[in-house]
């Protein structure tokens, strides 16, 4: 192996975006800046390419795609993409990790276990595209041990062939058989509360405010946007909490100790309608937000999590930070989308 396929987070920075993908580069940058990030390592984009080439997966997929035809803008063809996705993922998932790559990943994982002092340390295996495509690729939580780690890294790579990514690439005229991404392997935080933080108000672009959304358990429930989380606004100057909307938090995303998988669980009645963050935690998060905004020099869109196991404030971790996108303030609303569809589909207008 001539090129370096794997890096510790602290070896990386924003300039390594194309090398390891955006998420890995950002986590490296945060680590270097002194922000508390769970420790871990990153597989380079090259590792994806090398895996698909040496296992023969890329060639097999090309053969299948020669005969594939479907229109990504026709809802009726969505099923065809679903079918194709199943075939391609099966091709990738069925391959074994080449032994030279497996050796180097194992060595890094063993080192991570030593560093954290936990044997078979649970990790999150996250996708990291060089170009941000939120919600397209997959992430695996609570991965334990060498064997499962290899499998889940391959699953993350094969998620570039999931239904929604295929449709996206077809709609945007990108290659179908190839979409190189990096992959982050970081220690799993046993989360009490998680959420997102914007260092401006996403609804009106107000840069004097920090907006925090939070729910019990792992961050997936907030990031997916399907449940209504608690909503807090903190003033950047005074660090006063200027708005606090506590919602009815019906579900939380947790590790199921019985199956080892993560899943939605009903929140016990006594925790449903109370704030999941204390004022102390809110202010600490806001300070962290101000720090990363200053570091990057731009308003940030971040993800954070608070561990069950550690004392405050060492329990607060940042797991993602990226600049706020322009479309965050202005885009077609869901209501407009519905009205447009009503006109065209119900009334042919």
């Amino acid at each position, binding site marked *: 192996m001539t090129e370096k396929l794997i890096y510790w987070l602290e070896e990386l920075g924003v300039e390594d975006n194309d090398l390891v993908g955006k998420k890995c580069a950002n986590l490296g940058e945060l680590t270097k800046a002194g922000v508390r990030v769970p420790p871990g390592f990153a597989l380079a984009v090259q590792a994806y390419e090398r895996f698909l080439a040496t296992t023969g997966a890329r060639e097999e997929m090309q053969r299948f795609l020669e005969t594939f035809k479907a229109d990504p803008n026709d809802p009726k063809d969505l099923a065809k993409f679903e079918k194709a996705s199943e075939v391609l993922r099966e091709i990738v998932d069925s391959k074994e990790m080449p032994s030279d790559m497996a050796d180097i990943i194992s060595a890094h994982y063993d080192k991570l276990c030593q560093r954290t002092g936990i044997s078979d340390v649970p990790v999150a295996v996250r996708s990291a595209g060089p170009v941000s495509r939120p919600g397209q690729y997959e992430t695996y939580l609570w991965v334990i041990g060498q064997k499962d780690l290899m499998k889940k890294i391959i699953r993350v790579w094969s998620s570039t062939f999931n239904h929604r990514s295929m449709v996206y690439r077809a709609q945007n005229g990108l290659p179908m058989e190839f979409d190189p991404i990096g992959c982050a392997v970081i220690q799993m935080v046993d989360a009490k509360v998680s959420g997102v933080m914007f260092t401006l108000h996403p609804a009106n672009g107000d840069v004097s405010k920090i907006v925090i959304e939070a729910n019990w358990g792992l961050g997936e429930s907030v990031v997916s*946007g*399907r449940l209504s989380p608690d909503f807090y606004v903190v003033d950047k100057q005074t660090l006063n909490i200027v708005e606090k909307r506590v919602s009815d938090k019906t579900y939380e995303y947790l590790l199921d100790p019985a199956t080892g998988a993560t899943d939605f669980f009903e929140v016990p009645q006594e925790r449903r309608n109370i704030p999941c963050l204390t004022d102390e935690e809110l202010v600490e998060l806001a300070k962290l937000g101000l720090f990363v905004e200053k570091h990057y020099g731009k308003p940030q869109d971040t993800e954070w999590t608070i561990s069950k196991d550690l004392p405050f404030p060492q329990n607060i971790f940042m797991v993602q930070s990226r600049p706020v996108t322009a479309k965050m303030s202005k885009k077609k609303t869901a209501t407009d989308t519905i009205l447009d569809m009503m006109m065209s589909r119900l009334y042919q207008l």
Partner: protein
Amino acid sequence: MPYGYYHYDWRGEPDLDPQYYDCWVCNVAHSVPAWTPLFTSEWYRLIPYAMQYANDYICEPTSKGWDWRIYNGYAYITSIKVPESEVEGRKQVYREQLASIIDDPWGYSERLFSRLMEKYDYYKPLNVKEMRDCELVQHLWDMAELDRLMWEVHMLGWDGLLGGLRLWREMLVDLFGITPYDVRYAKLLSGFDNALFKLNSDLTHVAARAVELNVESNFSLPDEEVIPAMEQTEAGREWLGEFDKFLNEHGYRSDRMLEFTRPTWLEKPTLAIPDIRRIISAGVSHAPDILRHQLRKEGEEIERELLAKLPSDQREWFHKLTQCAQAAHSWSESHDYWCEFQTYGLRRRAIKELSERLYRKDIIDDPEDTAYLLHQDLIYAAVIQEKVGKKYFRDLIKRNKEEFEYYKSIPPGGDTTPLFLGDPSKLPLVAGRDTLFGVVAAPPAEDAAKVGAVAVGCAGAPGIVEGTARVIASASEWDQIKPGDILVCPMTDATWTPLFALLKGVVTDSGGLLAHPAIVCREYGIPAVCGTFDASKKIKTGDRIRVDGNLLRVYKLDQ
């Protein structure tokens, strides 16, 4: 001359006006059994008005609401085309109106209901018996006004909420292949509480109390003897206390939803006895209560699975549209409770008081005879000079009664009242341009004869069941129903809901996706086929039938 039909009556020869209207459909659900002249006069005064009013408010781009005509005693309906030149202007208004409803569909229906509730809270405590004649006349006008408001609210609800449900239904098929007869469709919409389910749940509680207090044996007595028997014992009186509480909250209802010439439960508590007896005999369990929580959990789980299949930027509108569909579905069931039940209960109270006064003054021979007077005649009778009134009203009653008897004698779907007038192949056009029309009267999905079925519907509730048919023409025949029957009837409405706990399946002649039988069957988890047009004529009581709610077909077995 027919009573009170005004310009809605074709008077013998239908003028189909094919340039303007594509096709007319016989509205069996609102024609059988024939309404009394009093109700008819008010219904046709208000219904076409309210439908066109609400349509103008919401401004559906392709339809101006429904038109109505009477032909040989039966109602015929169609939707009204919008001229090409008006479409663009209507489209803009419609977008504005719908945007606020899509943002808060549950709030929209709650605000509509609260407009009525304010009125009910004011009128309910009034004592009509103590009113002077002039005050009673004023109150009767107020009740007519309330009726107008009720129908406006009723139609604003339908027209405002249905568009979202209709789009959602189409998107479910196109994106996920889920049809309305897929069990997931029912689960996505079910499990929301509403006033009508609360009524039935409270009625079940009253039945349960009878069992707990050990007085349920009184229900083996004839209806009229149950309450006097309860009065004899301490436990019985305690049960009557519970029963009174129930009646005070839910008693503004009669055994026929669309009439105000029938006694309410509050006025004649004996009327509730058969429903309580049925619940006791079925083992005192209110299926939707037990199922609701589970259904909602399953519904949320299915929505999560569907959302996960969509690209992330498509999830928000789908979730929002799902909420619109859920609010529309729930509204379509609960509006009967807030609209017809309460308004007609109150209107009935005023009319009954007037009827008794007219009888005491010897202006009419029987208090029930006011059912044969039209609203505009009746309202003056309260203060009219007795000497004039005596002959005038008796003549009117005699004439209208004869005509009513004639209308009652005409069977539906016979030579004089065909199911369609005009070109039935244009029914899809009529139903397509008007969302509410499509819900009430869609064409059956396929030809029954071709698939070997006795009837095919246009809507229903999923599941397949085989059993014995019980053909019921109206509420007066409910006592014939046995637990485990498959109910076959022209149509059901909200007053029928307590029966569903006994049934294995339901088949109706009328009704679309949001019709009462389809909605209630989804909640109770029993198969249904609705909108068959003529199943209750082709099936006889005792026939062994199979109801396939997935394919919307009804088969006769043992042939």
